[in-house]
């Protein structure tokens, strides 16, 4: 009896393990004659990057019908990586096991790098939608392409565009202070600034660079510090929630710079930014790659977005949505040309990408031998009437830029 | 200063209140020395100072000819003073044997050796049958004996016993008394704080009486227990 019982329990344990394995293991899929490209979209939709991750996710959702209309045969699997590289890594493995032919993702650098490891070993292409750490394309990955600028490219394009903005609006700022979040993205921008600003020949002088802790509860000290330096221009690299705190304290402290500009970072145009600040959000300007209001794909995307995501505004989300769409489009296009879902062949096709019509402003998408697209120009976008509006370059602009920003007090 | 333990002019105050004032005495090797006195007389404070759990404000304590005041409790234990606690402190989640093994580790190099020592001591204290029980599951008398066993396992020259008989039934008290007598015969010096006079008179060769932190009498049981001050302050409320 005793022996029986122990045997029984041993067997149950084994059975339990087997059941556990069965839950984890998934049917392997015949890949050979796939007619559609199966793309796993890995994004941080919960955890501390949830806001951007969910925005990109909406981009992936609305891309599906647009790609279908364009005649691409793709199927997407959406996976949440919880802002956690461990999850990113195992989920990438799982997605590939379940038959994903390529992966699109993953908004931030840490998660993207974890996925890149897996893709590299399994020879499955990773098409980066958004992630700015320059090392992504410098570390030596052979199964990775990125249609997104590095921190340095963002800054270099940003400074160039800001220069045009200043000359176009005929303001004459003398000094500027640079404020950035001390996180991966902010640091990449800072390094770009340190390197590029001295040679950029900007019309104003950089008085000081200030880093702030993205986990800080408020920014009033930071603003006081800037106010004491009294620059004409605030150059900022922030996340959305911080941008709100920043502008609020700038207004409260009656600090009136000529312009609040971002040399290539998001943060000044999220929906929460507009909701919190109302008219005070207007006239902030940022030099960023942007959805091309005059491109066909972009218009199709906007139409689909309006239909499928009525609670959200396309002009606000078009940065995340556009880059995610372009990444998916790049993958779908490569599949069409390769005629195969084989990773090596897909990768070959990806490297020879030459996509003329895409959502974001700029010349055709191409990649260098490291997998980086070096031709992603920035546009100048300014908040006008609570809508991010392209104001430069003139050929894609829908309004002309206005600077200096009108005083805070007069706004209604 | 020929004694094994000599306490000289020790003082301890808590927030201005004298807990122990100017206490001096000597414990000779091989004797059983008892400290008695009413509650709050400063017995446990005195004990804690000897054992290193508290530091005296002034005065000196010598053990085996060397000063021990200011040493930490573990250093004093290493010098050869073992102690029990008034409120027992076994290692609750460990077995009875493991409790004693830990004591024995003070002077043994390996667990096997310590286990041998522990088993001997458990045998001596009638705890062998319970050696695999978890200490937390023991009854109070057993726990008290476990305390003694653990202290003995450190092979002390001097054993400090803080009210090991309190709360025990007379038969249990007699058993511990017998055990302590046995131990004393093998050469162990014992300093005990006790309320149970039955045990004190049966064991002690000399008695020190404390009241309000000060010594009011010292000597053999016969002489001390006849002193008026002692009877008035203490024995009047306590039955002989």
């Amino acid at each position, binding site marked *: 009896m005793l022996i029986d019982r*122990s045997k029984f329990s*041993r067997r149950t*344990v084994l059975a339990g*393990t087997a059941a556990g*394995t069965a*839950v*984890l*293991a998934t049917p*392997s899929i015949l890949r050979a004659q796939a007619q559609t490209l199966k793309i796993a979209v890995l994004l941080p939709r*919960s955890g501390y990057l949830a806001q951007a*991750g969910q925005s990109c996710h909406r981009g992936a959702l609305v891309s599906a019908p647009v790609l279908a209309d364009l005649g691409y045969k793709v199927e997407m699997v959406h996976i*949440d990586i*919880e802002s956690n*590289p*461990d*999850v990113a890594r195992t989920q990438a*493995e*799982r997605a590939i*096991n379940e038959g994903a032919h390529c992966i699109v993702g993953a908004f931030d650098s840490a998660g993207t*790098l974890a996925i890149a490891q*897996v893709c*590299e*070993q*399994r020879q499955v292409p990773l098409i980066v939608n958004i992630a700015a*750490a320059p*090392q992504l394309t*410098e*570390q*030596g990955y*052979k*199964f990775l392409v990125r249609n997104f600028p590095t921190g340095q490219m963002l800054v270099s394009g940003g400074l160039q565009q800001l220069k045009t903005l200043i000359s176009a609006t005929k303001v004459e700022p003398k000094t500027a202070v640079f404020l950035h979040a*001390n996180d*991966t993205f*902010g*640091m*990449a921008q*800072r390094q770009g600034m340190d390197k590029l600003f001295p040679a950029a020949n900007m019309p104003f002088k950089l008085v000081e660079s200030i880093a702030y*802790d993205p986990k800080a509860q408020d920014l009033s000290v930071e603003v006081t510090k800037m106010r004491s330096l009294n620059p004409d221009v605030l150059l900022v690299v922030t996340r959305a929630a911080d941008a709100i705190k920043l502008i609020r304290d700038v207004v409260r402290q009656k600090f009136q710079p000529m312009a609040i500009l971002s040399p290539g970072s998001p943060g000044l145009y999220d929906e929460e930014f507009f909701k919190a600040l109302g008219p005070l959000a207007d006239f902030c300007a940022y030099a960023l790659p942007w959805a091309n209001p005059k491109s066909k794909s972009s218009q199709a995307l906007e139409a689909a977005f309006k239909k499928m995501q009525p609670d959200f505004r396309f002009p606000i989300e078009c940065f995340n949505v556009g880059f995610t769409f372009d990444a998916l489009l790049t993958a779908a296009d490569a599949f069409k040309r390769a005629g195969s879902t084989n990773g090596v062949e897909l990768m070959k096709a990806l490297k020879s990408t030459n996509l003329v019509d895409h959502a974001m402003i700029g010349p055709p998408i191409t990649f260098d031998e490291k997998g980086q697209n070096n031709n992603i120009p920035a546009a100048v976008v300014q908040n006008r009437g609570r809508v991010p509006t392209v104001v430069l370059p003139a050929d894609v602009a829908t309004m002309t830029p206005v600077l200096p920003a009108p005083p805070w007090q007069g706004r209604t | 200063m020929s004694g094994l333990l000599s306490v000289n002019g020790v003082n301890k105050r808590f927030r201005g209140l004298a807990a122990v004032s100017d206490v001096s005495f000597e414990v000779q090797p091989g004797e059983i020395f008892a400290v008695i006195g009413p509650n709050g007389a400063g017995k446990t404070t005195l004990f804690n100072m000897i054992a290193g759990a508290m530091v005296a404000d002034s005065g000196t304590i010598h053990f085996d000819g060397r000063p021990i005041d200011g040493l*930490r*409790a*573990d250093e004093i*234990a290493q010098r050869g003073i*073992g*102690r029990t*606690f008034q409120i027992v*402190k*076994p*290692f*609750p*989640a*460990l077995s009875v044997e*493991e409790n004693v*093994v*830990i004591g024995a*580790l003070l002077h043994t*190099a390996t*667990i096997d050796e*310590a286990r041998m020592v522990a088993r001997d001591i458990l045998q001596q204290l009638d705890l062998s049958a319970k050696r*695999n029980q978890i200490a937390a599951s023991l009854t109070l008398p057993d726990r008290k004996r476990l305390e003694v066993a*653990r202290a003995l396992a450190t092979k002390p020259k001097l054993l400090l016993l803080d009210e090991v008989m309190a709360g025990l039934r007379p038969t249990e008290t007699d058993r511990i008394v017998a055990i302590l007598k046995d131990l004393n015969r093998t050469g162990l010096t014992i300093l005990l704080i006790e309320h149970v006079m039955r045990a004190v008179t049966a064991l002690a060769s000399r008695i020190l009486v404390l009241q309000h932190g000060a010594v009011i009498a010292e000597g053999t049981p016969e002489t001390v227990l006849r002193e008026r001050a002692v009877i008035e302050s203490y024995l009047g409320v306590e039955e002989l």
Partner: protein
Amino acid sequence: MTALWNEIPRHGKWLTALLLLVFIAAPLVVDRYLLSVLVLVLYFAYLGQAWNLLMGFAGQLSLGHALYLGLGAYTATTLWLLFGIGPWIGVFVAIAVAAAAGLIVGWLGWRFGVEGVYFALLTIAFAEFTRIGFDHLGLTGASGGLFLPVSPTAHDWWNLNGGVHLFYYVALILAIAATLLAAWLRQSPLGYRWLAVREDPEAAQAVGINVFRVRMIAMLISAGMTAVGGVFYGFYYRNLFPSQIFDISRSIELILGPIIGGLGTIFGPIVGAIILTPVGESLTTFMQSSGLNVPGAKSIFYGIILMIIISLRPSGVWPWLAKHLRLDRPKS
């Protein structure tokens, strides 16, 4: 050690051998996804053992082990990146650095009588302090991160560079070694002293145990072992960010396993890791296949599972499991 093995009942030996065999043979059988999950299981089992030495044996609650993890990871990767010193040598420097940090935390805490919850919060403070420090340390790329080059074709194990199999077996060896070390320490005089100090510091002192020293040794070993886990992490992921590796959530995730598995036991950390990591993964899979694919839903279930386990099995799953499998030590 042999005595320890002999103490395990017969069917327990079979089970242990079987478990070992399963883990050794796993790469031949399971697919890459499961293997990557198993790497995490072993990694957390290893870290759980390291943390369990300090908390389960010596009774000191550390909520800041990310400090040693991060220091280990950064030390070894920086040595390799900047000075070409390989991880197999760098790991010793990493151990030394983390152990030194552990000694500082322990010394500052215990010398001044900081214990219990206060000590736990002190460990958090040190980890956070160091995180912000590394956010500003230019040598390691500050908040921008530290990156190791990737050469996917190279399989040079001596530089800890290779495929999932290499890391799987490294993690397996680490987990087994940590378990053996923990078992050996548990049966050593030091282990007994740890337990004494955990159970009652005052009584431990009264039997001649130097409480401070014994705790410091636990901290030294625990921090050093955790640093080795950090080195593994650094070379497995090949990139490090202070905000990730030093984050308080790292400290928390590595202590869940041993607590859920069974604090102060040898197999608890392993059981905890075997339960928690797959539960997390299964939840993700389940959420996706059931259409409940709402971000955050998985974490809600995970949180509820934690609460249920700690309510039903406060001393962990392993003691309960051992009893039902008749693997607990025989009461003679």
